[in-house]
């Protein structure tokens, strides 16, 4: 009976951030007719928020850099939990992906000899981040957007229609992946502007929806980050990998309240900014963990010399990987040495002339001036940890970006897991988008072409079910008369954010996570009564009510996986298990939906909707292991891994 509009494509890309657009470009260039669906306007994706740069071992500033060094840094940053093949591909291909952006019109900052300038960043041994001031993400998204337009202009010249081979459906949300048996057959979506439903039939779907930050109260993420892709994959039967690893960026704004969480780029530290507590002490020197002791400066003098002479000095500990810095700030604040608004001080004003600050960190200067009335050339910033990135995500094959167990489903970017292990290095995100966005688009196009005319059909019943599910919030009242009046989706969202922030936040405890799971179960029940007023045309209340399903699913994954992993590693810190445990190194945690057919009914807090299972990671290839010193490997790898 379904009467929703249907269109046929070869590849559908969900999400129009860096990964989605790069995937779409690749698929289209390989001949697949490609559609992109995104929740916001074209060109507004969260990628624009990325500030620091794109990590790629081009060696423009320090010729000692190469992919092996980049690979090593990435594995160290991820505490060796990375899907090593992804880290390898990423380090090898990133330079090519950056250079190709230039051929599409990108304008990076330059070195004296006219090449792409590269800057220092936490965890990277050499200056490695291609950047444009502190608005690199904007440059990336605009370049990809303009490349898409260029391809559309090409199609227009040939076919008379801009959208004949590549079309962007902006302000549309996908609520379900449709399947035929185990294979992908298309997506079900609604147009936010009109509220109309539609189906895109396609044998290959690339999920590139980004992260889950909107499940947390203090976050640097935009409203779009509701874990849609994670949830879509779960609902389609694909597993999520290592969801306990959530990165809290050490430096988010802490004041005023309305901007709490907004990112303060790591470039501030890369360019010389230092962290101080209320006593004026550069406390990071007290927080260098054993595994990094040899790599970081032990005195302020040495750290300061490093900016000028990096070959003969070690870097200052402000540039430790993000998880270390975030934990250190957290400890300082807890010990009562925080700033007035509950953060610590990040100071560039005493380190560089105002002129230099304004040139190198223009948007930071702007951001603090406009939003907090703070002049960063004259006074220190107040900063504290903010939820920034999820390392966990859809479990994918390293080379093809194909989601496990669901033919036709691909994932790239933040929504895909594995690449960053337990903690992502700054700058590795933008390069990840490009490297794996391209790979996802490539293999999705290949897969779609390979099917020939035998495409999986779209099942009408699934379309009807999806439509009914999407309309549910409008009839919430009538559903469960015993359950009370309809719930306000905004209230539910706020409670969810508070729960995740307080109970599954940066420092985790077993009892609190159990409490979180109970709270999530209650919210799940209440979310079924989330009701909305008004009609379907651009109705934010309705949109939020639909997004709640995804946030609840993903939050449960995070909480369950975090409860299971009884160690501290990267973006997962357990107060009750404060040390990294080598036994956990080769263990992946996979989340699956308990009942993929009718998963939403599960409300039992103990059982929940998510099944957790363990699997062993692939052993790291010997030639890659040989890139590290034995002494270093001993700190990470389990006994049996070392002597294989």
């Amino acid at each position, binding site marked *: 009976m379904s009467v929703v509009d249907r269109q046929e494509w070869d590849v559908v890309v969900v999400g129009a951030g860096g990964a989605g657009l790069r995937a779409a470009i690749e698929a289209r260039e390989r001949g697949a007719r490609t559609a992109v669906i995104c929740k916001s306007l074209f060109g507004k994706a969260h990628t624009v928020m990325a500030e620091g740069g794109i990590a790629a071992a081009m060696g423009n500033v320090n010729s000692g850099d190469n992919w092996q060094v980049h690979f090593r840094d990435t594995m160290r940053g991820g505490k060796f939990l990375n899907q090593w093949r992804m880290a390898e591909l990423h380090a090898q291909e990133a330079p090519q992906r950056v250079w190709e952006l230039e051929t599409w019109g990108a304008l990076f900052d330059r070195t004296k000899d006219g090449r792409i300038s590269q800057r220092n960043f936490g965890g990277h041994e050499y200056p490695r981040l291609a950047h444009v001031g502190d608005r690199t993400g904007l440059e990336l998204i605009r370049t990809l957007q303009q490349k898409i337009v260029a391809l559309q202009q090409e199609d227009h010249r040939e076919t008379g229609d801009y959208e004949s081979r590549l079309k962007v459906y*902006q302000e549309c949300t996908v609520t379900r992946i449709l399947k035929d048996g185990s294979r992908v057959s298309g997506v079900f979506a609604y147009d936010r502007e009109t509220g109309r439903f539609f189906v895109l039939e396609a044998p290959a779907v690339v999920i590139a929806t980004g992260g889950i930050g909107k499940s947390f109260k203090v976050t640097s993420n935009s409203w779009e980050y509701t874990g849609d892709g994670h949830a879509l994959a779960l609902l389609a039967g694909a597993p999520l990998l290592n969801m306990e690893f959530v990165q809290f960026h050490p430096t988010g704004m802490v004041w005023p309240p309305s901007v709490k969480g907004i990112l303060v780029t790591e470039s501030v530290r890369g360019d010389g900014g230092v962290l101080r507590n209320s006593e004026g002490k550069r406390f990071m020197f007290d927080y260098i963990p054993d595994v990094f002791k040899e790599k970081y400066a032990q005195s302020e003098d040495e750290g300061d010399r490093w900016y000028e002479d990096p070959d003969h000095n070690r870097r200052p500990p402000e540039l430790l990987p993000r998880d270390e810095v975030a934990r250190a700030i957290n400890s300082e604040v807890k010990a009562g040495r925080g700033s007035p608004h509950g953060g610590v001080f990040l100071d560039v004003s005493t380190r560089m002339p105002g002129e230099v600050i304004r040139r190198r960190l223009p948007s930071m200067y702007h951001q603090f001036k406009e939003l907090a009335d703070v002049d960063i050339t004259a006074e220190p910033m107040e900063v504290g940890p903010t939820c920034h990135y999820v390392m966990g995500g859809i479990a994918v094959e390293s080379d093809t970006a194909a989601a496990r167990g669901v033919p036709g489903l691909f994932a790239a970017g933040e929504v895909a897991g594995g690449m960053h292990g337990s903690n992502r290095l700054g700058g590795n995100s933008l390069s990840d988008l490009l490297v794996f966005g391209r790979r996802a688009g490539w293999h999705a196009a290949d897969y779609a072409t390979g099917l020939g005319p035998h495409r999986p059909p779209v099942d009408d019943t699934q379309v009807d079910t999806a439509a009914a599910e999407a309309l549910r919030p409008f009839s919430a009242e009538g559903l469960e008369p015993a359950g009370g009046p309809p719930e306000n989706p905004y209230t539910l969202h706020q409670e969810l954010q508070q729960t995740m922030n307080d109970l599954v936040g940066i420092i985790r405890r077993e009892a609190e996570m159990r409490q979180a799971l109970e709270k999530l179960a209650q919210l799940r029940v209440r979310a079924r009564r989330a009701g909305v007023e008004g009609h379907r045309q651009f109705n934010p209340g309705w949109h939020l009510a639909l997004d709640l399903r995804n946030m609840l699913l993903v939050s449960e994954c995070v909480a369950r996986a975090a409860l299971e992993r009884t160690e501290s590693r990267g973006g997962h810190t357990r107060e009750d298990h404060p040390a990294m445990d080598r036994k956990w190194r080769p263990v992946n945690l996979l989340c699956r939906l308990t009942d993929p057919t009718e998963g939403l009914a599960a409300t039992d807090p103990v059982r929940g909707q998510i099944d957790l299972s363990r699997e062993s990671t692939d052993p790291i290839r010997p030639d890659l292991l040989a890139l590290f010193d034995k002494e270093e490997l001993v700190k990470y790898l389990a006994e049996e891994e070392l002597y294989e």
Partner: protein
Amino acid sequence: MMRTSLDQGTSDVSDQQGGVRTRTRAAIDAPHLRTDRWWLAPAATAAGLLAFIVYSTWRAFANADYYAAPYVSPFYSPCLAENCDAMRAGPNWDLFGGWWGISPAIIILIFPLGFRLTCYYYRKAYYRGFWASPPACAVAEPHKKYTGETRFPLVLQNIHRYFFYAAIVVAGILTYDTVLAFRDEHYEWGHMGLGTLVFLVNIVLIWAYTISCHSCRHIVGGKLKHFSRHPVRYRMWQWVGKLNARHMLLAWASLVSVALADFYVYLVASGAFDDPRLF
């Protein structure tokens, strides 16, 4: 979903209610909702320009009191007709002969006038102040149709650059006048009066305004694709750019100073005031 607003909009051209009150737009009757004193800037601009126009028209047609040795009014320099006052070593050449009956200022004023009329700053000023096109940002303009600078006569604004070349010549002559002002009324060199100072300030402002012109910025370097291959022109472009950022300020300052210089000559020439000698 992406949709163009072009096809929906153009049908409303004939509607009584155009612009912000086009049928497809948010239904708000007020032509603008600004609560600040948005009319102040265009009103002040219009008043200032009007004052100058009135003053300069009177002075240009007066054909009197424009020379008091050693000062010549910038409105009458160079003086190019037979009916000019005699100025020893001054900028008068009888190019136009005796047939020119009206004020000789008219011959030469056309150039600075053209320069200022086509100047990118003054265009903004009078489009806003006199034409109300627009009166202020986000305040609806009263005109039914608008074609901007696409048609005659406004397409002629594009010849600004040629007025700029002329303005350089004029500024050169005014510089010569300023040098001549270092004489006393008996044409003895090495003297300076209050008038010399007025002329000095005026000529500095005239040059600053002329050099800060957008056309100048384009010619010295803006037209280049690769600054790195032309380091000297790049430096000049940066320098002109710095001045150009103050083009509006310089436009007003030099307008006032040129009127003051003329008025000073008028006062001295008409005998209302004695030029105090400094040395």
